[in-house]
């Protein structure tokens, strides 16, 4: 590390600087710390035996042979877990996830038993020696079927008690519905009766996996004060609270620490392996590491498959006057945070459009598939896929330009959203216009000839920042002027360390490079709800700003006490030396932030303040389709966001293009393929394709519209997900534009286009003529 003479650095403007990540050097030298790297003395490795059936009763588990294998420390089943944790069920919304299966299994891949050994190869080998007998039960896999199915995934619903809108589901039996959320505005029936045109479509999305390249990993160890859990988690504060609840311990007895995450994308949220790590540590009384393989991640957490029926009433002028949305979210066998996805994304299902009459029904459904939870976008990409695909279909049928159709329907500032909340600082029109401009939408477009045809499409989506959630921060200045920022925000690649350092530096008149950001350690860093849903810039940005301002106020008070002229630059170093007579002491500022919010009405979903801000993303796409093979390539992709005023434009741009590239995977390639028995066929990169370097669009560019989020720290709001919103529907429209084929289910693969093209020879030849 080069020496930084803090006192000599100018107090330049920090926010808005294009700044490299503070940890850049650590990441290019291989030195960056990940929990993946951590080993502890006397550590045992845990390997998990997983259910081979989608739904069944466990008749017997024979561990005799595995226990006898040389090098095996122990074999653990739920019997052992129950001895140390009498109620071993966890989850943020429902207590529906047993640490190890108890009596029943609910999906292929559910953890059933664990082998512990000092050598991970021994633990893995011994798994083959455990014999489990199941009495198979019929399984339900489809989210729409599961609504009325006789097959019930859980005998009884057990809400966690944290969310008020789930409490009424406690004890409910014979249902797979883990939340039904509704929005009612105006009179939808009347709108359909009066409409000039009515459109009804059903759109589907598939189950996909985040595949963070650092697979989930957690290590538990007993300490003199309780237990420490080292984990690749996006939510250390929640892990502490949930593990303390499971063990019946106080928060003071559980310490949770994280490092850099090798990607998160929502996979490492709430509580995952930590419950099992805590149980195994308690049972074995030794440090235990659980490090998943890439394959195992597919059985741990995924993104909801959805079925979305959308029906729209449109008048003569092309205005949408009514919209009915029914969304079924396939949550798999554990609700995880699915009920929040169902609600928070559910209320945006009618899209960013000014529609007087809206009805939304959004259902979180249990099925016998691996659990689904948060995934970059928190359900928004599934919604945008449907409402933007339909927007393009409507525009086509009305003979309107799709950009113009959007322009006349988009919500303007001050207009009420479907929930009744008035739009504020939501630059929808600007994002649409900027995307269209970058696409040269109004200029002549080369549509190709012969077997190569070209088309283009634009999609725009919005997301409400999840609320109400709390962030706390501390800023400490030491007597040489060094600055330390303590937060529980997890840097998983989004650049939060850098952004938070910039905010603190801005307030304190320092350079961001001189600020040390302390990584989450619940014994050291204060509470934060979680690093999710693009909430950190807004929430933790404010908390750090307030903490730094608190430190400044303290310094001003000290300066006044010592009669230092207000005009003079006050610095922590001279003040502390004066107070304590030497290089000693600290100035510690604290900040906390929770935005205003009003819960939606239970029956109508109405709220005067449903969200602290709206994040907006638009994507324009040009494709080239080979009409013989159905193969297509993206020749241009333009991604535009409203993120307020970017704190660090350099990182924002990479975040936006990275999000769009990730979404290309879900749009075009990725699909967890299950057979009729719920067996996953492709849990590996050999058969599950994520975007590689060859999948980049030939031209890819990013833009940030000039905007201010007036309620945000320095005008900023989150941006980690916005690049994903418009990608999929824009591709579908571009394909339609090129060859007249409309795809309504993701992923959009060449073979689907090929099949559609050749099953529709007449249409294509007619257009060709």
């Amino acid at each position, binding site marked *: 590390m080069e020496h930084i003479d803090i006192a000599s650095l100018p107090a330049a403007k920090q926010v808005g600087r294009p700044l*490299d*990540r503070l*940890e*850049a*050097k*650590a*990441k*290019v*030298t*291989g*030195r*960056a710390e*990940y929990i*993946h*790297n951590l*080993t502890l003395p006397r550590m045992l490795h845990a390997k998990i035996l997983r259910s081979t059936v989608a739904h069944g009763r466990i008749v017997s588990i024979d561990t005799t042979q595995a226990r006898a294998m*040389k090098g095996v420390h122990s074999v653990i089943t739920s019997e052992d877990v129950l001895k140390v944790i009498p109620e071993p069920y966890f989850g943020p919304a429902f207590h529906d996830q047993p640490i190890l299966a108890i009596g029943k299994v609910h999906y292929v891949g559910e953890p059933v038993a664990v082998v512990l050994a000092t050598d991970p*190869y*021994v633990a893995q*080998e011994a798994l083959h020696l455990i014999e489990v007998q199941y009495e198979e039960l019929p399984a339900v896999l489809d989210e729409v079927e599961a609504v009325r199915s006789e097959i019930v995934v859980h005998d009884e619903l057990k809400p966690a008690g944290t969310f008020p809108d789930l409490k009424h589901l406690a004890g409910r039996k014979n249902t797979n519905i883990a939340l039904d959320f509704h929005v009612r505005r105006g009179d939808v029936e009347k709108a359909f009766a009066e409409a000039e045109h009515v459109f009804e479509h059903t759109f589907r999305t598939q189950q996909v996996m*985040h*595949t*963070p*390249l*650092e*697979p989930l990993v957690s290590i538990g160890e007993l300490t003199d004060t309780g237990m420490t859990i080292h984990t690749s988690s996006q939510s250390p504060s929640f892990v502490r609270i949930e593990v303390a609840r499971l063990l019946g311990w106080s928060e003071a007895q559980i310490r949770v620490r994280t490092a*850099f*995450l*090798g*990607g*998160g*994308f929502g996979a490492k949220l709430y509580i995952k392996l930590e419950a099992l790590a805590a149980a195994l540590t308690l049972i074995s009384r030794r440090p235990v590491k659980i490090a998943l*393989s*890439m*394959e195992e991640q597919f059985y741990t957490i995924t993104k909801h498959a959805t079925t979305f029926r959308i029906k729209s009433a449109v008048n003569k002028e092309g205005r949408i006057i009514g919209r009915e949305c029914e969304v079924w979210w396939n949550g798999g066998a554990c609700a995880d945070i699915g009920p929040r996805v169902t609600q928070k994304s559910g209320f945006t299902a009618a899209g960013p459009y000014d529609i007087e009459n809206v009805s939304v029904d959004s259902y979180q459904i249990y099925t016998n598939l691996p659990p689904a939870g948060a995934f970059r976008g928190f359900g928004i990409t599934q919604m945008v896929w449907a409402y933007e695909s339909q927007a393009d279909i409507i525009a086509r049928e009305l003979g309107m330009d799709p950009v113009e159709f959007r322009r006349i329907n988009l919500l303007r500032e001050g207009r009420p959203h479907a929930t009744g909340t008035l739009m504020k600082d939501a630059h929808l029109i600007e994002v649409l216009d900027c995307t269209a401009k970058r696409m040269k939408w109004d200029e002549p477009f080369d549509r190709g000839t012969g077997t190569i045809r070209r088309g283009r499409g634009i999609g725009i989506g919005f997301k409400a920042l999840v609320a109400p959630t709390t962030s706390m921060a501390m800023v400490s200045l030491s007597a040489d002027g060094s600055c330390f920022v303590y937060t529980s925000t997890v840097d*998983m*690649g*989004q*650049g939060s360390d850098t952004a938070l350092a910039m905010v603190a530096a801005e307030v304190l008149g320092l350079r961001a490079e001189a600020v040390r950001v302390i990584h989450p350690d619940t014994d050291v860093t204060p509470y934060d709800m979680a690093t999710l849903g693009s909430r950190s810039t807004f929430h933790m940005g404010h908390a750090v700003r307030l903490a730094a301002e608190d430190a400044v106020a303290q310094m001003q008070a000290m300066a006044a006490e010592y009669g230092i002229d207000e005009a003079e630059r006050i610095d922590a170093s001279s003040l502390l030396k004066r107070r304590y007579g030497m290089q000693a002491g600290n100035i510690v500022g604290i900040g906390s932030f929770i935005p205003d919010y009003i819960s939606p009405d239970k029956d109508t979903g109405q709220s005067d303040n449903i969200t602290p801000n709206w994040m907006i993303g638009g994507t324009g796409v040009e494709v080239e389709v080979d009409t013989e093979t159905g193969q297509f390539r993206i020749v241009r992709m333009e991604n535009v966001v409203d993120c307020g005023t970017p704190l660090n434009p*350099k*990182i924002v*741009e*990479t*975040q936006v*293009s*990275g*999000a*769009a*590239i*990730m979404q290309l995977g879900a749009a075009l390639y990725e699909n967890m393929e299950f057979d009729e028995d719920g067996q996953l066929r492709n849990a*590996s*990169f*050999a058969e599950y394709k*994520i*975007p*590689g*370097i*060859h999948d*980049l669009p030939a031209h*890819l560019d990013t833009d940030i519209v000039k905007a201010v989020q007036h309620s945000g720290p320095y005008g900023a709001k989150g941006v980690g997900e916005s690049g994903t919103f418009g990608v999929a529907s824009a591709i579908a429209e571009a394909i339609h534009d090129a060859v007249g084929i409309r795809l309504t289910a993701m992923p959009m693969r060449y073979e689907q286009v090929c099949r559609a093209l050749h099953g529709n020879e007449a249409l294509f030849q007619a257009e060709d003529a």
Partner: protein
Amino acid sequence: MMSNRMTSISFVLNGEPVSAQIQPHHTALDVLRNIFELNGARESCGQGLCGCCTVIVDGQSVSGCLYLAPALDGTYVETVESLEEGAELDPLQQAFIDCGAFQCGFCTSGFLLMAKQLLQSNPDPSKEQISNYLSGNLCRCGAYPEIIRAIQLAAQRMNQKKLEETA
């Protein structure tokens, strides 16, 4: 299949002769991480498909998660930790920083080593040549455009420096 038999291997690791006691089923990654505590190469997909575990053995990039430890005997092994010279970053490392060519950083070591190997054989690669060469490395954060730019920038700087040195 596992075997408990221990064998001894000797090789040159980032310029330094070393030896290690291993079992035949151990991988190069096991040796580097567990014995020599070099954590730059990482296991991700475990199938040689993502490139996170890339190391250089006798001048050739291999997947450390598949390359068996016994085969390291008598070789020269280089890892991402060898790129720095003293406190001086390799031009590729610096270009990766300047272009913002990573987010979470988990895949970065693999991309750097592949890029290093590419520039040794092709000091001025085109965008297509870079893409072809790196098609076996995955980056879930999607930093590919920045990675391509970084490699071009590093190549340009290295070629410029060579020109200046010969002038």
